């Protein structure tokens, strides 16, 4: 699916995002499963709150990581992937 920058996304029910000290990374937990997230995936999913639009999330990330430059493409690509995996849904 395609997402637009106006979409507001949230974690699908049963999915939990959290920091795992033992693994030193963010993970996504769901019924009997777990995905380890790399640093950028963790940073992006950490912003998904079911309230702000994709556009707002991109802006927030660009502010946090000014050295990274424009992030819209990368962020949208990852969020689309996360929607296709059914980790996220449009709220």
């Amino acid at each position, binding site marked *: *699916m395609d997402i637009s920058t106006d979409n507001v996304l949230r974690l*699908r*029910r*049963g*999915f*939990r995002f*959290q920091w*795992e*000290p*033992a*693994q030193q990374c963010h*993970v996504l*937990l*769901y*019924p*009997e*499963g*777990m995905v380890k997230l790399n640093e950028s995936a963790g940073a992006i999913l950490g912003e998904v709150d079911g309230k702000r639009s994709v556009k707002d999330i991109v802006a927030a990330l660009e502010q946090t990581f000014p050295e990274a430059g424009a992030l819209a493409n990368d962020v949208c690509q990852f969020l689309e992937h996360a929607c296709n995996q*059914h980790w996220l*849904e449009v709220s």
Partner: protein
Amino acid sequence: MMSPNPAKKHNAHLNVGPPLWLLAELTYRCPLQCPYCSNPLDFAQTEKELTTDEWIRVLRQGREMGAAQLGFSGGEPLVRTDLEELIGEARSLGYYTNLITSGLGLTEAKVNAFAQAGLDHIQVSFQASDPELNNAIAGSRKAFDQKLKMATAIKQAGYPMVLNFVIHRHNIHQMKDIMALCKGLDADFVELATCQYYGWALENREGLMPSKAQLVKAEHEVNDYRAELEASGSAMKLIFVTPDYYEERPKACMNGWGSLFLTVAPDGTALPCHSARLLPIDFPNVKDTALKSVWYDSPGFNHYRGDAWMPEPCRSCDEKGKDFGGCRCQAYLLTGSADNADPVCSKSSYHDRILAARKSADHSAIGIADLVYRNSDNSRLFFKS
């Protein structure tokens, strides 16, 4: 950490990570008697269960080590009156908490109370093979209604809906109906699991194992249904666990011995998988051994780590990093030695035993009423002192 442990030294070169998955088998008590139950045949001999405090200690130690997924199973975990307390403790520790239940004894009030306590997910398994439900799937509505009602209550309380169907030769022809039922319930995850033949299911193998023809048909049906789901944009995920008896290579059991999974049995025995209890190996007990030392230091957990223990044909096989020689329990049950290659492997000299089982599955005339049911009387028959 100070005393040099021979088992540990032996495995010193191995990079053992933390147990990410903790399975708490709270009890072997269960109101049902499924003929494919994975509990030990002599479960009736294990009556002393860990106390609430002992379980809480195990949960804390596991979380400290890095366990993130926690399953409460059994038996039927709902018979433990401290379940809500354990859920609360587990959730506050940061576990993703899974409750694996038959749904019997579940009420809407409990579904909600558990959600309050922080339970993340309830998996309802359908015992299509106890006589009542078998009738139910065939058309009567009684016991089935309780499960349907609970499934709906679970979804309403905000949990993801995870349904589990144990599949065998007497219900595999209902695959399409089962999937349609799950879709109708708006399930998120559906596990269609043919049983693994340990414990009660091995006793009943000939009466449970689907024939090759049945399996092929069911696989087609699942694939077609999956394609339909995807085309419609449905998020329902179907997982079809097929019997490894029809494979030429074994499954990578538990992702390798003592690599991710840690099971604690009702009496506190710690195991690398829920059926490992049947192996002639000494496993530690969490009552007197800290979980860390159970996992990293105990001879039981180190027994099949790495590949130094492997005899031929695994030893010189270039696939050993892929399947770790398969399942130790299956090797033990079918070849008499747990060191052997899993006989599912076509390179195993015992593979003919798998072939023989396939043949019996083609001709089996064992009806549902002829199966050995998991209950205390039958369990005592299996207890050899």
